[in-house]
């Protein structure tokens, strides 16, 4: 096993001016894992000046988020990030793949054995990398106690630190780019920007007047037909934007079609739906800003919906034995309890409407979700969403916390 050559700039007890970071991501399914890792990688480069190699085992999935990516390339540069194809055979350690100063396991993926040995070699040379296990986001209380907990590798003695994203100051925070809110405010303030978006994304000259605009991004969902029926019977016109994804075929079927493809529209009663192409990550925020209510799923779009400061409905990644319910309820409890002394507390009706709707959208019971109750609560939920986003934005973001942590480790 050839020993890794330590970073030319790194020395024991000091972080180089441009820390070299290896971020490993296994795409388990869907786009949440790579979505988060890609955002984090870009932010560490742009805002913290790191040199980041992003190792991804499934570039084809990644390409949905970043369409100009070439899945055939073993190495390419995107937005300043060195994107590497993580093949099953990682190959022998050389200058080209030797461990960086910071090593991040995205969502507890397993590092290649050769790479781990090379990290050990760096440690023996007095220059151990800062090793981080970046976990999934959760609002559960235990997260506070597990954030920044350490372990020692049983054989190599390398220290690994758990980094838990979360909603409190005792966690790693949420991903939030520095310019996110100024981009959002610019979009909301400019009719020209909004109209251009509607033209580009939906093919309409502007947002429909007098309609409630909803985005629908979800996993397959048994509650969908009942919801579409309620929307069709609504007294307010509803325009629903459906990006291509796992729920789009079922929307098409409800209209008696084989599918609802990008560019297609359909209408029944008060409901009009527009099929959108799969929305690349860079464009997703604008979709959320353009809508009055957002249905999101997984982790990445879930966080973006919170930053959009609009009411939203979360379809959490479903798991066996309803293991995901605990996580969903923990977030609901935190989100609905939220109020600062200056706030008007969220009314009981609005709270119950949202909680019940989320539960039924997530299959807690076979009853259809009550659209009328949620629609009535939307003005109040809108104000609440703005307060929530504002409070969360007062906490440091994930990339900043990560960078600060790493700096403190090597001081």
């Amino acid at each position: 096993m050839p020993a890794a050559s330590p970073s030319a700039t790194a020395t024991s007890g000091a972080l180089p001016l441009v820390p070299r970071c290896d971020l490993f991501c296994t795409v388990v399914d869907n786009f949440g894992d790579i979505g988060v890792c890609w955002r984090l990688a870009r932010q560490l480069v742009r805002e913290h000046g790191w040199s980041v190699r992003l190792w991804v085992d499934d570039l084809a999935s990644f390409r949905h988020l970043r369409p100009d990516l070439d899945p055939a390339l073993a190495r390419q540069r995107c937005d300043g990030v060195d994107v590497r194809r993580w093949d099953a055979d990682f190959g022998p350690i050389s200058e080209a793949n030797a461990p960086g100063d910071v090593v991040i396991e995205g969502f507890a993926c397993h590092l290649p054995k050769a790479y781990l040995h090379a990290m050990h070699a760096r440690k023996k040379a007095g220059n151990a990398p800062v090793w981080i296990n970046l976990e999934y986001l959760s609002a559960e209380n235990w997260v506070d106690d597990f954030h920044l907990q350490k372990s020692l590798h049983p054989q190599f003695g390398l220290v690994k630190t758990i980094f838990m994203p979360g909603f409190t100051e005792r966690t790693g925070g949420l991903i939030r780019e520095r310019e996110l809110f100024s981009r959002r405010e610019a979009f909301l303030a400019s009719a020209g920007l909004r109209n251009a978006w509607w033209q580009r994304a939906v093919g309409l000259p502007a947002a429909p007047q007098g309609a409630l605009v909803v985005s629908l991004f979800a996993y397959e969902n048994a509650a969908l037909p009942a919801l579409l029926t309620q929307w069709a019977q609504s007294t307010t016109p509803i325009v629903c934007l459906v990006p291509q994804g796992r729920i789009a075929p079922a929307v098409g079927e409800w209209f008696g079609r084989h599918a609802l493809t990008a560019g297609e529209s359909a209408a029944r009663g008060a409901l009009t739906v527009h099929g959108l192409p799969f929305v690349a990550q860079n464009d997703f925020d604008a979709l959320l800003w353009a809508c009055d209510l957002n249905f999101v799923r997984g982790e990445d779009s879930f966080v973006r919906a919170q930053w959009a400061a609009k009411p939203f409905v979360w379809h959490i990644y479903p798991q066996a034995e309803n293991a995901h319910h605990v996580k969903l309820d923990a977030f609901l409890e935190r989100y609905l309890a939220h109020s600062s002394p200056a706030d008007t507390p969220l009314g009981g009706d609005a709270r119950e409407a949202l909680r019940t709707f989320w539960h039924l959208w997530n299959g807690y019971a076979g009853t259809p979700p009550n659209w009328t109750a949620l629609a009535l609560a939307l003005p109040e939920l809108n104000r609440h969403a703005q307060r929530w986003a504002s409070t969360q934005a007062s906490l440091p973001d994930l990339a900043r916390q990560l960078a600060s942590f790493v700096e403190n480790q090597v001081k």
Partner: protein
Amino acid sequence: MKIAQELRVGNVFMLENEPHVVLRTEFVKSGRNSSMVKLKYKKLLKEGRGEFTYRADEKFDTVTLDKKEVTYSYYADPMYVFMDAEYNQYEVEAENMDNAIKYLEPDMPCEVVFYNDKAISVELPTTLIRVVEYTEPAVKGDTSSGKVLKNAKINDLLEVQVPLFVNTGDKIEIDTRTDEYKSRA
């Protein structure tokens, strides 16, 4: 070999070729997050305690320790000396005695633990009966004020919290793992 999730209190696992004893475990699993195990440990051969948090599937080499029934004989600074049924003597260094020192009495049965044929520590029965050397009498009104436990001195090294009805001279059962009162004997 065991995974972190399988480790139990009292198991000995290896960290960087050094044996560590599990003192406590806490397991969490939710949603898509990794299952994780918080391990409180003490080092088997040296001073040192701590806590690490592992993914539940992290693999550890574990060690099965040999044990022998003995009785406590005497203390010869800095060693505690124990004797088995065949009158073989085993010495354990004072710094490895840990909590056991507080309970030792002449001819008391216990187990000596061996690692690589060396006596390294002593294990006590999980429950022992001891006489309360001194405790304050209960004062009327203590229960209503919410004060339901009081200190009881067992010997110079050991104090436990006992219910108000326990008096000086009473025999009580103590959990030697936690130094907690279990019942009146």
